[in-house]
């Protein structure tokens, strides 16, 4: 397995010999093109706009015509008194807790079933057809989120939708418009996301479980450890790092949600029941032209995202000690 770390490994081969350090015109051209071009793109497209957004969030900027006026933290004060923004923030926070929890629990359970679910005596082995299950599970992940949104809009539709149709087969058609009903809409959208992404995390966990040393699993089995205990008390702690990575990825998805919400419940759903910050930001900027206010929402979203990542990574790392 290739190990990828964020630190620069100190022992890795790096050219340091004097002969290679000579500055020649060709070498200058090499550095300018190989380092300069990518960094130019990165600064113009990513860094500069982010820096501008932070500045605009402190202004009342409303478009190209008027010059932005500095108003300090007024946008932020305004956001936290705006009921729609608070609703959006609440929805994001609910999703941020619920989505990673549901996805990780289900993905881990499926990964365990695939890797240690084989019905054999004694030794642990994967279920028959494990490759088939893995392949099918991963497939939704490669379907674009927009298409998943549309697909689930079909499924949840009160007119000829798959869900009510299936419930109708057993005489239980509730006639509910799942995406239109404020009680169900957020859950319905969340389940579509679970369907879309579950397979990715399952495959991630399957790979992690395979990297658990076989001797440890053996030893636990010899000690009379059942498969449930083996999974939760032996395997789970050993793949803790993958679980924390998964939690951060899913948390980022839950704090975004733009595509799913925009496609399944345009305008944030009935009575703003599925409003999220990303969609509200989009509307505030590109329909209401309140660019300063929208930038402030972006900053809040970025801060929440980073806080979440730090808490998850720090929380999981601490148990290593």
């Amino acid at each position: 397995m290739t190990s990828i770390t964020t630190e620069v490994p100190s022992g890795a081969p790096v050219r340091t010999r004097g002969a290679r350090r000579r500055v020649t015109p060709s070498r200058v051209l090499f550095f300018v093109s190989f380092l300069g071009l990518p960094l130019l793109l990165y600064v113009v497209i990513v860094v500069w706009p982010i820096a501008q957004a932070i500045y605009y969030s402190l202004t009342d900027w409303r478009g190209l015509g008027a010059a932005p006026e500095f108003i300090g933290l007024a946008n932020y004060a305004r956001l936290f008194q705006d009921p729609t923004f608070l609703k959006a923030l609440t929805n994001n926070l609910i999703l941020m807790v619920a989505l990673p929890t549901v996805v990780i629990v289900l993905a881990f359970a499926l990964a365990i079933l695939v890797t240690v679910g084989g019905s054999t005596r004694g030794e642990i082995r994967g279920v028959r057809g494990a490759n088939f299950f893995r392949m099918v599970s991963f497939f939704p992940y490669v379907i674009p989120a927009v298409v998943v949104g549309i697909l689930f809009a079909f499924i949840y539709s009160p007119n000829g939708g798959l869900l009510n149709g299936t419930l109708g087969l057993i005489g239980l058609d509730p006639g509910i418009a799942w995406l239109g009903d404020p009680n169900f809409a957020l859950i319905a959208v969340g389940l579509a996301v679970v369907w879309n992404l579950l397979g990715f995390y399952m495959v991630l966990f399957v790979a992690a479980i395979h990297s658990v040393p076989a001797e440890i699993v053996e030893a636990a089995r010899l000690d009379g450890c059942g498969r449930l205990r083996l999974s939760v008390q032996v395997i789970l702690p050993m793949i803790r790092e993958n679980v924390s990575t998964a939690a951060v990825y899913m948390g980022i998805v839950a704090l975004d949600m733009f595509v799913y919400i925009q496609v399944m419940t345009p305008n944030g759903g009935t009575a703003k029941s599925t409003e999220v910050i990303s969609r509200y930001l989009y509307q505030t900027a590109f329909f209401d032209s309140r660019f300063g206010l929208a930038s402030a929402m972006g900053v809040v979203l970025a801060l929440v995202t980073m806080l979440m990542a730090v808490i998850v990574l720090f929380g999981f790392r601490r148990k290593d000690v």
Partner: protein
Amino acid sequence: MATTSPDSQSATTAAPTRDGAGASGRREGRARSRASGGDRTFGVLANVVLTLWALLVILPLLWTFYSSFKNSREILLSPFSLPEKLNVDNFVNAWTEAGIGRFFGNTLIVVGGALLLVMLLGAMCAYVLARYTFPGRQLIYYGLIAGLTFPLFLAVVPLFFVLESMGLRNTYLGLILAYAGFALPFTVFFLYAFFRQLPEEIAEAAAIDGAGDFRTFFQVMVPMALPGLASVTIFNFLGLWNQFLLPVVLNTDQSKFVLAQGLANMQAQQGYQSDWGAMFAAVTITILPVLVVYAFFQRQLQGGVGRSTNK
């Protein structure tokens, strides 16, 4: 599907030993037979749950696929019935009238261009960062990695005006640059690791043979890094094909819509003119190519998941 899977490779050698151990003592033997009863239940449970999940994945897709041959009336009245006749009108409508064909072409241009650009720039940048020492190297590396943690939403409002001021809004080039810019941190992050692992001796040999920096990169290093480049390309392809916020904000000219945008737009208009059949057909048209690509590349994809996240 009953082939021996790599999943079963874990612990085959220990079985005989354990049988011997089990036979040697009654207490241990009893414990083992109780465990194997539980194991059987676990095995049955595993198959039932996995089969249910597989059906949850497959059935909606199958339903979409055959519904795309039905007309809107059939879809609304009897959601489960098979189409009365195989009628491809929906596909024709979706491809031409709804403009899916055009959106498809636009997506190929934008995603293809961005993929080429980001892989080239990403590989160049990762190579220099991984194999040369110079002042500010770490700063640049961490500056790029930081880009992975900022949400797109933070940048998207000013980016709109940046492209506007360069006259690149509603152009293919503008979209390509934006796609490539935001895919760059991910690309550099993963390729950096690949370039660091390449053996130093070969680069040295190339230098002794008189190859300059450019030739060493394009003719020696890139071919050696091909496996890494391939898997990053696949993941970038999926990410860019999936991109939605950037085109929605930066590309409001309907003739330049990408597929994701066009589909969302079509869906938004469903309330007024409900051609459900064409909608199902459009979804099928989008899913089928992905299914084919997936069938070919699923080994690399799943291998990539393991490789990129196993620490």
